[in-house]
């Protein structure tokens, strides 16, 4: 069974029709309430529209942005479908990423939690530099499904040839990129609704899924928890004091980051390496025989071991090596540049440590998306590879294998700002 929740992100250059597409998805799945619709109708008139509903206004955000007529930050939208025609129906969370200015930072943020990424193109303009960047970031962030929605097909006479031309050009690029994601192309008109929710009558040559059908049926990551190693970062130790009936309860609470755990299994507590067995998997609703990601649970172990926040419970044979040096791709998110020697706080799962930048390895050229030579610094919105050393051992996996235990953030202790998103490459032995 699939998890009936899908998180996806949308990206596109300004005016490609992203707001219209999201508005269309909400409208055609009947998620728009009457008072919102009234609002949009009034605003459509005020803005001198031709009387037609401007669906883009449905996703209109904060006032500052309304005044500037642009979106400057990731916005989250919610909609759901009910099962029909044998389809399951799902709950959707959209991370709507603005298309310009700060786009890298925003897109990385939106993509970090997404299972699928919709990249919007304007059929008239074809594959722009920005579309390639969006695909690059989606791949870098390990999003397993990529959907290229070729929009405004109505403005190119719903031409099959034009669509195929764009598909070919995009595919050449993603081949070079070596993206592992599963890639789907859909010709749409967000304005008219073709192939968004309802099948297009103008494009009989396209007989594959509409965008919504795809969103409803695509498999999400948690479909296969038994195939990934179990990772349980301890978040919080439950040791009730003075609670009648609780005895000398000692439970390790946290969210299973990946994989599954069962009662009775032999486990190892990292980085210390103490071994024990799982005595019980507790939840408020009772004990479980087994738990799988992303459940929040409380573990009890057979042996009395002193475990605290930041340690990780794993299966003995598949535990990660603790490391104090690592190589990672980072997206730099602040004005003050990243340089060799820089010191930060690193937060990885539930563990924090000090980190120092040993060296910069390369930087991705925003135009060619090729990795260039070791730079002097990384500036705002740059993506590049760095080597870090940490004050305490970390329990990492390569990001390509595990998005939860392969990711981290860097925090600047002077400003307390989050300055980088990091994705672990192959670990280097300590």
């Amino acid at each position: 069974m699939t998890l009936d929740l899908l998180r996806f992100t949308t990206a596109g250059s300004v005016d490609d029709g992203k707001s219209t597409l999201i508005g269309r998805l909400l409208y055609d799945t009947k998620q728009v309430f009457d008072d919102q619709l009234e609002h949009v109708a009034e605003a459509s008139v005020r803005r001198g529209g031709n009387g037609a509903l401007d669906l883009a206004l449905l996703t209109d955000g904060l006032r500052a942005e309304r005044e500037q007529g642009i979106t400057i930050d990731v916005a989250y939208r919610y909609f759901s479908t009910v099962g029909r025609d044998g389809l399951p129906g799902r709950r959707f969370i959209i991370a709507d990423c603005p298309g310009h200015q700060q786009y890298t930072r925003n897109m990385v943020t939106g993509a970090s939690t997404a299972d699928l990424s919709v990249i919007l193109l304007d059929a008239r303009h074809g594959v722009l530099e920005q579309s390639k960047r969006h695909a690059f970031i989606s791949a870098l962030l390990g999003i397993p499904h990529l959907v290229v929605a070729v929009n405004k097909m109505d403005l190119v006479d719903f031409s099959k040839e034009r669509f195929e031309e764009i598909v070919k050009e995009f595919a050449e690029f993603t081949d070079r990129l070596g993206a592992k994601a599963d890639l789907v192309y859909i010709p749409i008109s967000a304005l008219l609704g073709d192939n968004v929710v309802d099948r297009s009558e103008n494009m009989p040559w396209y007989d594959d899924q509409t965008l919504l059908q795809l969103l409803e049926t695509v498999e999400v990551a948690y479909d296969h928890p038994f195939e990934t190693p179990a990772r349980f970062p301890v978040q919080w130790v439950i040791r009730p004091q003075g609670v009648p009936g609780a005895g000398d309860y000692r439970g390790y609470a946290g969210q299973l980051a990946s994989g599954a755990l069962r009662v009775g299994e032999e486990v190892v507590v990292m980085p210390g390496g103490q071994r024990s067995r799982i005595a019980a998997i507790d939840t408020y609703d009772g004990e479980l025989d087994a738990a799988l990601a992303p459940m929040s649970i409380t573990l009890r172990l057979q042996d009395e071991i002193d475990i605290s926040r930041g340690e990780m419970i794993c299966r003995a044979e598949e535990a990660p090596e603790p490391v104090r040096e690592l190589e990672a791709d980072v997206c730099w998110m602040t004005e003050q540049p990243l340089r060799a020697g820089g010191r930060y706080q690193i937060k990885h799962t539930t563990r924090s440590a000090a980190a120092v930048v040993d060296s910069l390895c390369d930087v991705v050229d925003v135009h060619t998306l090729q990795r260039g030579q070791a730079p002097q610094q990384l500036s705002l919105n740059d993506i590049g590879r760095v080597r870090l050393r940490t004050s305490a051992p970390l329990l990492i996996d390569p990001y390509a294998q595990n998005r939860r235990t392969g990711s981290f953030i860097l925090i600047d202790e002077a400003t307390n700002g989050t300055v980088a998103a990091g994705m672990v490459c192959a670990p280097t032995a300590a």
Partner: protein
Amino acid sequence: MSTTARPELTHLQALESEAIHVMREVAAEFERPVMLFSGGKDSIVMLRLAEKAFRPGRFPFPLMHVDTGHNFPEVIEYRDRRVAELGERLIVASVQESIDQGRVVEETGPRASRNRLQTVTLLDAIAQHGFDAAFGGARRDEERARAKERVMSFRDDFGQWDPKSQRPELWNLYNGRIRKGEHVRVFPLSNWTELDVWEYIDREQLEVPSIYFAHEREVFERDGMLYAWREDVELIDGEQVFAEMVRYRTVGDMSCTGGVRSQAVTLTEVVAEIASTRITERGETRADDRVSEAAMEDRKKAGYF
């Protein structure tokens, strides 16, 4: 043990797990968290999630209610009973006290509301107790200005929210670092919708205050909404008080929370009504957001929840 069957997790389980994770992160990383509790449906869900996150231990934070003095008596009664059941500590921050101390000036006239004044009472209480993190039950689907709100939302030492300088929030890694005097607001239900909340209440069989179910009440109609009649309400020309079957979708201050006509007297009926409703929660029942298109945004910047 069912190891062969493919696992299945519902979206409610996923949302629940995410919220529990957020609560435990805050408990672990902050020194003095507090959980705001209004007695409304969202905060009722928050209490259950806190039980799931911390039992058999105690909550690592007290609960706090900002009492406008114009709350529905049913809600106050519910609040006290629920807190006693849980055996947790409740702090009541009173808007009336803020008025008596001259911290705020009461609005006057028939449309007077204490909704705005709550912000001062809340910020004063946060400062007085030295709280560095305050949990709230707000959801991003409630209102457009909330769509960009972070799960962990940074507030400067004036308690203000600046939509332009929010910290990026990546994966499930929250940056909880603050300076003295600053605090964060934390919204574990960010990704829940109104329907999720009701489905969860139904699934967990949580008790909610009686005003959430259809009941007969003396009301008057203003700006297309049905308000509860109380002794101290000033009616405007032509407004009539009449009896109507209503239920509430939110439980704010009586002065600005409207009821909706309803026949739903059980949880299942309420869920069914919400699932088929055509009007947003705030559009239908909250006068405070109707004042202007940017009403919520302005209040949030000033430190409102």
